[in-house]
């Protein structure tokens, strides 16, 4: 399911990492996370999980939980397909993205 979701791509001059953000359109920390990526010039893609059908969202969360062995909360970021970040703590994002 996570491979078939419709993502919005945001271009940026720094595209060396593959960054995907699962977010809620209503969430302040999600907005902060997306603004942080834009401010750092990082190319990324995102999907608002509250704007997709419930069954798709639940299946995507199940897949993410199974892959990363954590409870899914938002924002949830996947870096290079293997690293994950739960929530937005700027220092963690800086470290994971090598900024």
């Amino acid at each position, binding site marked *: 399911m996570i491979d078939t979701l419709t993502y919005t791509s945001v271009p940026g001059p720094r595209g060396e990492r593959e960054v995907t953000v699962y977010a*809620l359109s209503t*969430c*302040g920390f999600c907005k902060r996370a997306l603004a942080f990526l834009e401010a750092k010039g990082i190319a990324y893609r995102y999907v608002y*999980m509250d704007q997709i059908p419930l069954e798709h969202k639940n299946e995507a969360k199940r897949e993410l939980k199974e892959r990363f062995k954590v409870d899914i*909360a*938002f924002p949830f970021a996947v870096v290079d397909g293997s690293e994950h970040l739960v929530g*937005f703590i*700027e220092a963690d994002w800086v470290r994971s993205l090598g900024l």
Partner: protein
Amino acid sequence: MAPKTAEQTALFATMVARKQGWALNPDADFTQSLVEGLTTNWNRYGYFLCPCRDSDGSAEADADVVCPCAPSWKDVEERGHCYCALYLAPGFAAAGKEPQSIPDRRHQIPRRKA
């Protein structure tokens, strides 16, 4: 369920904060985005689902994360702010600290009966 405006939601949040002895997040832009998120959720689901949590699909399933969510009291007391950071402990707000995402203790406490 009659739709709500952001102004009505802001009044709701102000009343909650006053009743609980909490402060609203002094970051006006951040708070406004949460108020808009709560308004969206009211108009989408019919209740003030926490803007930083996704719906499990029913009012019964979401009962513990309707604003102010069940973990709020403990989060404000122990971490200085609620999960979405709309409500802050007065001391946290006065110190000018910046809220950050905190772990969701939703699944660590008993669910409220719907």
